[in-house]
């Protein structure tokens, strides 16, 4: 909300505070945050009125003129001007050398086409008066010369922009702010504005309230003989200063009242109202109503409407009707000052998206005790600018909303709640300063807040008033006392989550965080379907809650590829651990209970590897991420979490079908099992997708369930058990077998382990060779085995039979040939 400093000063003397900046500081400290202070004359300090004494053509240009201007100093200036709308004798605005105009333009002594110019003649836009303008500003011939332009144009005001909260409706007016200033100064705010003092006899119009507590009171006054015309320049200036638009003298008067008092009011053309009747009722469903802004609303049957004898003439509290508005030919007015239910106005405003100044005030609550006074102020402003005479009126109250219940505030409450001593007298004087009625009872105050303070309902509200008046700086710092030992039960999940993230980081992967929503096409690319759609997404790109984290990671790769201009060097080792969202398909999403949405969140773990495996190295050492890197990441991850029972099964050997499988290379991917439960899969992105996306190097992805993993892992607080080793010397034996190309290394190792019992401690593949001397379709696999007895040194003779048994077993089981 914008506050005019000069307007505020008319309501309360600000000289004791001094300047707009100081007033802003006072308001901010009291909780009325001043976001911006705008001085209207800023940038115009070196712009003065000047008379064009002589206008000559520029010697070098047909478009430019060369003007001699009198700026009231006795020494004429010579200024080159590009405009064409001026002539000799005109009074204009001249910016002098050294001026820095509101648009940032700096005026210096300059040569324009070889001729020296000692300033600039300004247009309205250059003076900050208009966004666009044509030609330079020509002032009335009677304008004195050599005066600051800001003074001549009356641009001496300062505008404070306040950022007000939803519970600060009582500050949405100049009087509301003036009351705060008065409280700060320790004075009582007196409204000295001129009011209509005449009698108001019952008029022709009947007021009919049909909405009960939703429209508690309505005040209507008839005025005859008004003349609609433009408002005075002062009124126009005042309204424009705070960002409002001048319409005509009557509408402007209603707006002045709104910005002055915070009470929205309305003026109808009485001749356009049917049946000498005005009233309020609940709208009928389907009822149509043209509005002042040129639109038409169709009511749902929930709104409050203002009606005459025949039709709806206004959306109560939100906007007047287009069928009863004041026009140039209006001579009879019906003025309205009324009260409407905050909830009703808000609902209507939201439903029809009409964010009017009136709605912004009614939805937060107006002063129900002030209708009479506001009406008298409105009559005064209307008749003083548009003429006319009050012919009658009536003020109908259906429900009295002005009476407030008293709040009990124990004398020591503020001290105990805020944590520093606030005396009883101080509390009383602060609240009285805020126009509360303060009565002392035994041990406590009984406090009745003023009718306009809808935000004061409980003792904590009053405590805030006391605290903000004293200033929050007075609150000391204390450390809260723990009344019981700290607990850490629920921190366990957080610890586990972080451990899981670190299990990736240690392996060189970096964490990404993606939005929980993605586009339909991104999901479709992977054959995925979301069961949770946003009703009001930001755009199509963010419409569906994700069933999987893979679409996000692929988007990261796509985006990074794009930002790297397709460079081969892009390496993207990333992971994400976040929830995915699921809801039973085809069932509407609706709340099941206060705590149940029906949507389940399943946390998942996902990773992606693509590009060069290492960071900067010589190209001879370079290689791309491959399957075994991905396998290493997966096994390293589970090992670090102490997960038991992880198994991998080639995708081609698995019968299970999850949404992810169709997106994986069938020969270079595996499903992950914990015990017998499938928890996810990893492997190469299907080449058809790699190709469609134009990814430059193979993409390795993986995703698995986080919750299942958590169950099968060491708890957050359980420590890894130390595994001792034996110090006896081992005996190593290497075997190289020529095998059929389809034999898997794992199967051979299993056979070796079985045959090597009981002394065999480990067996692993250390070489794999195809081609060359190895026949086509065959593969040479070399295994390193290690034998040991934990209690003594072994002899070769003891290992020999086991070695022979291994060779026999592998030869027999796989038709292998020892090389």
């Amino acid at each position: 909300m914008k506050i005019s400093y000069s307007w505020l000063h008319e309501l309360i003397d600000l000289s004791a505070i001094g300047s707009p900046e100081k007033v802003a500081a006072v308001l901010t400290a009291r909780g009325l945050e001043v976001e911006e202070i705008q001085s209207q004359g800023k940038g115009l300090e070196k712009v003065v009125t000047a008379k064009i004494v002589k206008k000559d053509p520029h010697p070098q240009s047909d478009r430019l003129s060369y003007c001699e201007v009198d700026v009231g100093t006795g020494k004429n200036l010579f200024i080159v001007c590009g405009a064409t709308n001026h002539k000799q004798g005109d009074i204009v605005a001249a910016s002098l050398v050294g001026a820095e105009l509101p648009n940032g333009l700096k005026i210096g002594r300059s040569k324009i086409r070889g001729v020296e110019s000692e300033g600039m003649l300004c247009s309205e836009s250059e003076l900050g008066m208009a966004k666009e303008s044509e030609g330079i500003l020509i002032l009335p011939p009677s304008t004195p010369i050599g005066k600051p332009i800001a003074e001549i144009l009356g641009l001496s005001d300062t505008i404070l922009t306040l950022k007000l909260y939803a519970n600060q409706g009582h500050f949405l007016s100049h009087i509301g702010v003036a009351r705060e200033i008065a409280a700060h100064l320790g004075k009582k705010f007196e409204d000295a504005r001129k009011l209509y003092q005449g009698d108001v006899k019952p008029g022709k119009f009947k007021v009919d309230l049909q909405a009960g507590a939703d429209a508690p009171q309505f005040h209507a006054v008839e005025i005859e003989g008004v003349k609609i015309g433009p408002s005075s320049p002062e009124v126009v200036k005042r309204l424009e200063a705070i960002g409002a638009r001048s319409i005509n003298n009557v509408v402007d008067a209603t707006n002045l009242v709104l910005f002055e008092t915070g009470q929205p009011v309305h003026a109808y053309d009485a001749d356009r109202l049917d049946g000498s009747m005005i009233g309020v009722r609940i709208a009928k469903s389907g009822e149509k109503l043209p509005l002042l802004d040129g639109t038409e609303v169709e009511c749902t049957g929930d709104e409050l409407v203002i009606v005459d004898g025949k039709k709806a003439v206004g959306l109560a509290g939100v906007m007047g009707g287009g069928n009863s508005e004041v026009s140039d030919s209006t001579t009879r007015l019906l003025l309205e000052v009324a009260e409407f239910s905050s909830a009703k106005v808000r609902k209507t405003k939201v439903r029809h998206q009409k964010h009017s100044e009136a709605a912004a005030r009614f939805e937060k609550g107006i002063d129900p005790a002030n209708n009479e006074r506001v009406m008298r102020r409105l009559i005064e402003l209307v008749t003083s600018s548009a003429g006319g005479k009050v012919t009658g009126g009536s003020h109908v109250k259906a429900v009295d909303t002005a009476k407030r219940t008293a709040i009990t505030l124990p004398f020591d409450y503020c001290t105990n709640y805020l944590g520093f001593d606030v005396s009883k007298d101080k509390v009383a004087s602060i609240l009285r300063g805020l126009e509360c009625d303060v009565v002392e009872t035994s041990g406590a105050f009984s406090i009745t807040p003023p009718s306009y303070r809808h935000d004061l309902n409980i003792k904590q509200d009053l405590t805030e008033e006391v605290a903000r008046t004293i200033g929050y700086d007075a609150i000391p710092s204390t450390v809260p006392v723990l009344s019981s030992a700290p607990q850490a039960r629920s921190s366990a999940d957080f610890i586990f989550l972080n451990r899981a993230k670190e299990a990736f980081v240690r392996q060189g992967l970096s964490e990404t965080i993606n939005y929980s929503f993605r586009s339909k096409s991104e999901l479709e690319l992977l054959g995925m379907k979301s069961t949770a759609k946003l009703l009001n997404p930001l755009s199509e790109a963010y419409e569906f809650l994700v069933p999987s984290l893979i679409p996000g990671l692929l988007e990261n790769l796509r985006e990074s590829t794009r930002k790297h201009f397709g460079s081969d060097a892009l390496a993207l080792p990333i992971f994400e651990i976040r929830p995915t969202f699921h809801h039973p398909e085809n069932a509407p999403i609706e709340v099941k209970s206060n705590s149940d949405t029906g949507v389940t969140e399943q946390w998942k773990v996902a990773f992606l590897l693509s590009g060069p495996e290492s960071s900067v190295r010589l190209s001879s050492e370079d290689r791309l991420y491959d399957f075994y890197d991905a396998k290493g990441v997966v096994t390293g991850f589970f090992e670090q979490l102490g997960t038991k029972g992880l198994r991998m099964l080639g995708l081609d050997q698995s019968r299970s079908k999850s949404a992810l499988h169709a997106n994986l290379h069938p020969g270079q991917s595996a499903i992950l099992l914990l015990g017998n439960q499938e928890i996810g899969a990893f492997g190469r992105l299907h080449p058809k997708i790699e190709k469609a996306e134009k990814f430059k190097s193979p993409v390795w992805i993986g995703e698995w369930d986080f919750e299942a993993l958590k169950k099968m892992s060491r708890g957050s607080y359980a420590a890894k058990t130390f595994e001792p080793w034996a110090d006896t010397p081992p005996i190593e034996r290497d075997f190289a077998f020529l095998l059929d190309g389809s034999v898997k290394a794992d199967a051979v190792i299993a056979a070796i382990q079985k045959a090597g019992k009981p002394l065999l401690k480990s067996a692993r593949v250390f070489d794999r060779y195809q081609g060359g001397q190895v026949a086509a379709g065959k593969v040479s696999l070399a295994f390193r085995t290690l034998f040991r007895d934990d209690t003594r040194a072994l002899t070769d003779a003891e290992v020999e039979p086991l070695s022979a048994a291994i060779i026999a077993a592998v030869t027999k089981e796989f038709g292998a040939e020892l090389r």
Partner: protein
Amino acid sequence: MIDQIQRLGEKALAAVESATGVSVLEEIRISILGKKGELSECLRGLAQLSALERPKVGAAANEWKTKIETALSAKKALFDEQALAETLKRETIDLTLPARRHRLGALHPITQTTRRIVEIFSKLGFDLMTGPEVETDYMCFEAVNIPADHPARDMQDTFFLGTGVLLRTQTTSIQTRALRSQSYPVRIICPGAVYRNDHDATHSPMFHQVEGLFVDRGVKMSDLKGTLEFFAREIFGEKVGIRLRPSYFPFVEPGAEVDVSCFRCAGKDASCRVCKGTGWLEILGAGMVHPRLLELAGYPADEVSGFAFGMGIDRIAMILHEISDLRLMFSGESRFVSQFSSP
């Protein structure tokens, strides 16, 4: 004979001095000190000398032997040293070629900041609590004193999934769940993703908040200030201070906006990148828990009181790391995510 030994010795020393390599030294050693060497030959004549002369000549010969041996080994050491120096020189490599490094992974700055915040509050005895991101209208709004027609709903543009089902706009919903699942004392810190229908350089449709809640008998507003002062100093450094300003959040009363003095310039630099010259960073909203929240959760609102606070994790991460565009946080850009391997 002594003279002969001396000449021999001087000749040998001269030869050692002018030797050009280890092999030459060996030749000298053999020709002088070897079994058939000149000195040995010379000493064979010792037997013919008188008993009186013999020890003198013997001593002189031994003296010269030692001298020559010393000279030989000194010279040899010199040659060895030279040879080593040459080897070392030959083995010198180009140190400026790139290091063979393992790639360092990094936690997202939001994760790192969340962890720092959680650690700080755990020192004060706060336990961690999380909750669902898809929430009921009740938990997100009704239970925190924002009924359906409340103007405060305008403060947050909400994403809806269905009737009464939304993406939480604030982690306050975790507080409401916590209050319903335990009795006082409650001391929890609640981080998580939240969602609002807004997108530009400083607003993201998904971002992160952390809220804290402390409910017990006799909790005062000064406890809130002390807690947040401790937090500010732990995260931004010993020298910062905090400032509370009156503000409004429907779930607290009194409410406060909390500013932290600029840790970089302390308000002394008008062109400071961190505080934009204001000297203050607006990072927290806080206040005393509104009794309505306690009542709705079934607490004896007259017996207990509490404070609550909330802040944007992303905003704090942006301040700490001087990240200017929030959207980068969610870009997954390789150059962004890999940058934060050091805190």
